[in-house]
């Protein structure tokens, strides 16, 4: 995606600090629901500029399920119980192949902060609980916004829905 500063529509100007925030760690719980199947996992997501590291773990003993490291255009993934290190251009394709579900990581870098990806068209929707919008076939609802620091308002609950797959992320800690 382009590196020029995103052209923010008028309504998003207030969120400028959130757009500029690209050094963060998110700790949270995430549920993935596909028809009658559902899993809940713990997520540790570290973003440093355009590089990310995502650890997915599950179960009472917080066992690692998968680990992804990457940046736009390249991702490496390790899956618990397998020696091989998988690489691909996009995390979505790799996760789908390996885990049967995928986190929309490329857009998710923005969505988890409760903002649309500025490089792709989006439509905002009415939402009394928070802020919701549609983008790339996904419907995103961000809510439970909290002042993480004087000029940063970040959500604690993000729901992402697309064709039968519902991902709900509850952020227990933002570390900036």
């Amino acid at each position: 995606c382009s590196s020029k500063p995103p052209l923010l529509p008028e309504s998003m100007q207030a969120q400028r600090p959130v757009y500029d925030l690209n050094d963060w760690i998110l700790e949270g719980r995430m549920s993935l629901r596909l028809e009658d199947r559902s899993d809940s996992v713990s997520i540790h997501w570290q973003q440093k500029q355009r590089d990310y590291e995502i650890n997915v773990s599950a179960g009472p003993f917080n066992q690692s399920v998968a680990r992804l490291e990457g940046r736009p255009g390249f991702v490496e993934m390790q899956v618990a119980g397998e020696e091989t290190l998988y690489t691909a251009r996009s995390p979505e394709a790799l996760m789908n192949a390996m885990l049967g579900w995928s986190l929309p990581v490329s857009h998710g870098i923005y969505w988890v902060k409760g903002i649309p990806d500025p490089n792709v068209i989006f439509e905002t929707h009415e939402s009394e609980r928070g802020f919701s919008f549609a983008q790339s076939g996904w419907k995103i609802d961000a809510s439970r916004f909290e002042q993480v620091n004087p000029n940063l308002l970040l959500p604690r609950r993000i729901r992402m829905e697309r064709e039968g797959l519902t991902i709900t992320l509850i952020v227990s800690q933002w570390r900036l």
Partner: protein
Amino acid sequence: NALDQLASLLTGYERFSARFEQFSSGEQGTRGEVTSGYLAVSRPDKFVWNTETPFPQEIVSDGEYIWIYDTDLEQATRKSADQNTESAPALILNGRIHELDRMYEVTLLQRSVDMEVFELIPKIPQEAMFSRIRLLFKDAVLSEFLLDDTLGQRSTIMLSEVQLNPELDESIFSFTPPDDIDVLYESDR
């Protein structure tokens, strides 16, 4: 040998309860958060693992099904119990020494008057979810688990207020989901 000593420490009681504190750490040191809560086991296959902080989550098994209820996620999922009973920590908590012996090489790393440290290494590493497990017993009571998984993450679980054969209300091992949440009954995979 080490297995018999571990067996003597892990068998001989039917029920077990404790408070736990757990944190995960990777190569670069502590990474995850510290979670804390309460666990109870009623052998052979009932258990409760309730995380209280930072996020409330209840994992309850009556031996037939396992319920996972995430309060914040407003979702409860019921899965069949037999998928998870083979995990090493479950075998340890349930004192199923034969299965443990089949899957792990047990060695006694350290021993002193009031403390033993056992190490479990998988006999078939490719199949194991953990590359190494350590168990610390203080005064013959399990007080710490160290679980190194195959992706280089270590989960440390510290137990306190451990009780062997406590009086337990059996109803804690059955779960009925609250009515205003998503409830999912997962068919066997």
